[in-house]
């Protein structure tokens, strides 16, 4: 290496490249590297703020901790408690039901509307705005309160149903229906996924459809054999983020039920229960165990998603 040789020897080996230039270059590279670490400094500190708490939360999950006294190791007690706790089970069921109903319906709605818009309509930008706006405000306190009001006693929804002679259920007060009400709110925010689908659909060359039509492929066949495979990375992207986001739902349940998860624990999302245990009862060891169980469930579904994606997601790069 030139660094260990004398300038004369290096000059002899590479006569067209003076040693001084090489040294200057490597010092420029070192300066660039130093600069990179300087630019990344805030990010490194931020990463520590994520990585260290990540480890600490695993430790706390094996302790009894109330923020005031130092944590006491209790072994697996918190985890056995999670699996024996009926409220934990209820909250897991609420969260999974919500996710597995709301996410597919939202995605199908988003795709259907995106396909309709992609057919070419006058005023496309207007429609897109109207459908997109709700997704920006759907998790705000104002909208959750609004939802509770329009579905609640004497609300617009039941008045509307009453107009057709249907006696609507207690959308807010009936434990069988409260979660359905929140699912409708989730579907209302399909616009963000729709925008992503629409951008994806625009990238599919129209000639594919024309060729398929010439070959006698009908609407459904074109959808299955052209749209779905070519859109699959986008569907996958929406699905992964939809699941992760939905499994972490909090505000909707909290505001809808005034923080209780009611009626009869029907809107007790897992995160809401975690909040109650950790920040209302200050049972932080148990709350950490709950967080880890949730993390493992989310990691499981995400990994499963990535694994299954090999069979149906098609990358054209």
């Amino acid at each position, binding site marked *: 290496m030139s660094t260990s040789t004398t300038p004369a020897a290096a000059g002899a080996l590479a006569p067209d490249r003076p040693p001084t230039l090489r040294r200057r270059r490597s010092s420029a590279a070192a300066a*660039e590297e130093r600069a990179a670490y300087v*630019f990344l400094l805030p990010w490194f500190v931020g990463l520590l703020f994520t990585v260290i708490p990540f480890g600490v*939360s695993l430790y706390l999950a094996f302790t009894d901790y109330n923020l005031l006294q130092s944590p006491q190791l209790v072994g697996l007690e918190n985890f056995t408690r999670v699996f024996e706790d009926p409220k934990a089970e209820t909250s897991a069921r609420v969260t999974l039901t919500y996710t597995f109903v709301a996410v597919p319906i939202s995605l199908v709605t988003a795709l259907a509307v995106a396909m309709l818009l992609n057919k070419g309509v006058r005023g496309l930008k207007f429609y897109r705005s109207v459908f997109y706006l709700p997704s920006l405000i759907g998790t705000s306190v104002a909208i959750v*309160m609004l939802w509770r009001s329009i579905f609640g006693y004497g609300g617009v929804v039941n008045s509307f149903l009453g107009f057709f002679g249907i006696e609507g259920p207690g959308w807010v007060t009936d434990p069988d229906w409260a979660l359905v009400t929140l699912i409708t709110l989730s579907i209302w925010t399909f616009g963000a996924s729709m925008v992503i689908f629409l951008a994806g659909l625009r990238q599919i060359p129209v000639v594919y459809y024309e060729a398929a039509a010439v070959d006698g492929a009908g609407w459904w066949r074109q959808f299955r054999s052209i749209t779905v495979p070519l859109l699959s990375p986008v569907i996958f992207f929406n699905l992964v983020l939809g699941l992760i986001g939905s499994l972490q739902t909090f505000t909707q349940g909290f505001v809808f039920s005034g923080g209780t998860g009611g009626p009869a624990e029907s809107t007790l999302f897992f995160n809401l229960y975690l909040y109650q245990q950790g920040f209302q009862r200050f049972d932080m060891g148990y709350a950490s165990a709950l967080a880890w169980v949730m993390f493992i469930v989310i990691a499981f579904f995400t990994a499963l998603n990535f694994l299954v994606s090999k069979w149906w997601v098609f990358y054209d790069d």
Partner: protein
Amino acid sequence: MTDTTLRRTLRSATSRLRGVEAYQEELTGTARTRFLRHVVLVGVGLVMMYPLLWMLSASFKPSARVFSDAGLVPEQTDLGNYAAGWSALEHPFQLYLVNSLILAVLNIVGNLASCSMAAYAFSRLRFRGRRPFFAAMLGTMLLPAHVVLIPQYVIFAKLGWVNTYLPLTVPAFLATNAFFVFLLVQFMRALPMELQDAARIDGCGPYRTYLQVIMPLTVPAMATVAIFTFIASWNDFFGPLLYLTDSQLFTVPLALRQFMSAEGASDWGPMFAMSVVSLLPVVAFFFIGQRYLLNGIATTGMK
């Protein structure tokens, strides 16, 4: 393995966003199917807009008539709801608006500075460990925030940061939002490398290149980050709920929530009036920055 798939997925989703604004109105189908399409779209649109219009109209109705008067145009308008709602809580509503604004501005500044710095290093500079660090950055995207919640709370509590804005703003200055870093990386990567080479030949080091070459060209992506940050910060309920108990520090969502208890609300008119006030900034940002939102959303999948 997951990391490569994730990157491919993100890249694939991003490459498609270029089409977002390039719509040409290419009409297909007969006049009849085109008409039916509009009927369906208008129908869906009306159902989606109805709750918002209903809320707007309810905010002008006297509380007692909110539910009995079904029409969107109030039979009897009551502007007093806004005045009543403004002073219905412990503090006048402008206090909550200003608090929310302070948090939003600090978050915007923090995210713009720290995320663009990290993105610049990842996309334009060569250094050892670039690939593993980038993979770690992508990995944090999939990490549910609630796993680290309790230890973070413990740390902030021990630092004496509860009932201050520090837990809600300092993380923004530490590039903790991986979605924004990724969005900016994608954007900066697309800028020609020759710009940087030219700057270097002219004697411009990495710091000046960042400030004077890359930053000015990244303005559209920075606008996307700023608008998303504003909306996320303005809507955030969980963070303030966790860290703020002093009503003097309350943000708009925390204040608004006080209008409704577990049993429901009674002051419907003022509640809806203040709800409208709380949503107005987001709606305004939506109309001003729609282009940036649409570009950003395809990259990050943010809502």
